[in-house]
């Protein structure tokens, strides 16, 4: 069942098309990645889905509700992490969360306190709960902003660049937490990011957008394949021989062989790594090679992404 669905979603600003005919669906409980460079239209897409702005044409449903007709109900059902943390710096962590819990319709004082404790403990901020946000580090602010997005237990989360501007350690922490969130309370998450690492580690499916247009969509593995990047079997040998590469080229399923390190390292391109790898190893052993190591290397999403963006630029 699709929790979020867009149909030719389009948004123009004074002649500039920020989002151009996007159509995609996100299943319940899925973490869906919206991947693209800065200015690709990711933030505009999230603003359209959170009813902060309206589409110029096309439409979308969020939790079965129409973004044009049911704006208030949609706002209640989503938690949003905006581009900047959007926190009140003169208020404490608890005061910030209390305000947003009530703004999203929570009214029971005990339930609010309980929920605030849960999210602050989850994000390891409980000890700093009475400190003003102005005293927090950037990473802590981002964690608190995520806590704010979650405080009213929304079934849908829209996260705009959750690791942007953070150092690698803080990025990893946030990424791990978002990953854990996906497993909790059956949340549907759309994650906008220009960091391939985030998409690769967190998302089941991603859509790459550039200049408002969807370039490609599918699982991370699908994307690698669709964009022509071929998986490889990387082999390290104890001794080199030109005969080994020649033998491998004749193996069924092998699309190409590259030798490096004076012939000690062989890189075998194949679309079917699982089927081809045993035949490759058997062929090498049959040819008298001593195989030290063999591993399957999937092409990085980064490689695929960069080639796609470059292609789009041309």
């Amino acid at each position: 069942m699709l929790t979020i669905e867009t149909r030719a979603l389009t948004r123009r600003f004074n002649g500039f098309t920020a989002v151009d005919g996007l159509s995609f669906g996100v299943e319940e409980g899925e973490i869906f990645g919206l991947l693209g460079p800065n200015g690709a239209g990711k933030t505009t897409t999230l603003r359209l889905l959170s009813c902060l702005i309206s589409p110029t044409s096309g439409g979308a449903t969020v939790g079965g509700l129409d973004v044009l007709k049911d704006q208030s109900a949609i706002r209640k059902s989503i938690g949003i992490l905006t581009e900047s943390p959007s926190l009140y710096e003169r208020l404490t962590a608890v005061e910030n969360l209390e305000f947003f819990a009530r703004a999203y319709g929570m009214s029971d004082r005990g339930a609010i306190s309980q929920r605030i404790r849960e999210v602050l403990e989850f994000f390891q901020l409980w000890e700093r709960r009475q400190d003003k946000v102005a005293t927090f580090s950037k990473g802590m602010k981002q964690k608190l902003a995520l806590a704010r997005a979650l405080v009213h237990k929304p079934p849908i989360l829209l996260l705009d660049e959750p690791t942007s501007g953070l150092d690698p350690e803080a990025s990893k922490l946030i990424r791990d937490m978002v990953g854990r969130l996906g497993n909790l309370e059956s949340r549907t998450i759309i994650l906008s990011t220009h960091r391939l690492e985030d998409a690769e580690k967190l998302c089941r499916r991603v859509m790459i957008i550039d200049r408002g247009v969807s370039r490609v969509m599918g699982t991370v593995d699908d994307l690698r394949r669709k964009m022509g990047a071929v998986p490889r079997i990387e082999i390290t040998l104890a001794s080199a021989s030109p005969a080994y590469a020649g033998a491998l080229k004749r193996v069924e399923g092998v699309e190409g062989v590259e030798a490096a390190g004076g012939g000690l390292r062989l890189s075998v391109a194949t679309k079917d790594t699982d089927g081809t790898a045993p035949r490759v190893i058997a062929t090498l052993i049959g040819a008298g090679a001593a195989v030290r190591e063999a591993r399957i290397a999937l092409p990085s999403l980064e490689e695929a992404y960069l080639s796609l963006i470059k292609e789009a630029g041309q």
Partner: protein
Amino acid sequence: MRLERAMLVYNKDWLEMKRNWQIVAPILIVPLIMTVILPLILFLVPSILGTSGFNVPQSLLDRLPPNLSQEIAGMGPLQSMIYIFAVYFFAPFFLIIPLMASSVLASDSFAGEKDRKTIEALLATPIEDSEMLLGKILVSFIPSILVTFLAFAAYAVVVNVAAFSLFDGRILLPNLLWLILIFGVTPCVALAGIGVTVIVSTRVKGFREAQQISALLVLPILLLIFGEIAGALFFGPTMLALLIVVFAVVDVVVFWVGMKLFRREEIIAKHS
């Protein structure tokens, strides 16, 4: 529209603002000047320079409304002058207090949130437009009107104490006109001015722009003051009742216009 949701915005903003001296200071400084310094100048200058040279100009006396002329009949020149200024001419200045005290608060309402990049999370909440607008108006209105009431109390004390010996122990303030002005006209005028400033705040890019535009709102009040000094207007019961009715209507119109002009999309666009 639910009042408790508007009060939620109010409470959040007030909590934030009272921790910011840049915002709190103007609320206190303007009333202090109006309520303590102005009357003190009025009473101290004649006592320092001597009272012999102080005569109310005949042209001013000619323009006074008949009932005021009756009130000062029999008073000496210094008494007349102090009475006219302290009990009559200074009254409309109290219309300015809530406007000036609230100008920072009201300008900051939405524009400040844009500057501090907190507006997007606020607009993403299910709080309705009317609730958000009312909450922002109230957070400027309530403190500034309370300060005005306190300023009036302080002004009355200062005037009565300073005038005690000069008027043989007579209590000058409060009188009926001042009570109508402070508790009737001033809240209505303040609400209209604050409403306009909050609307401006939704439609500009930042706090400074909002404050520059909102400063113009004092001009109509200054016209009232000059009109009164020039004898063109008299703040009598009829005039004050008329002002209450007119500004009550203006308040409703301003809120209605505010609702019509409130577009989350435009606020976000100005923020981005």
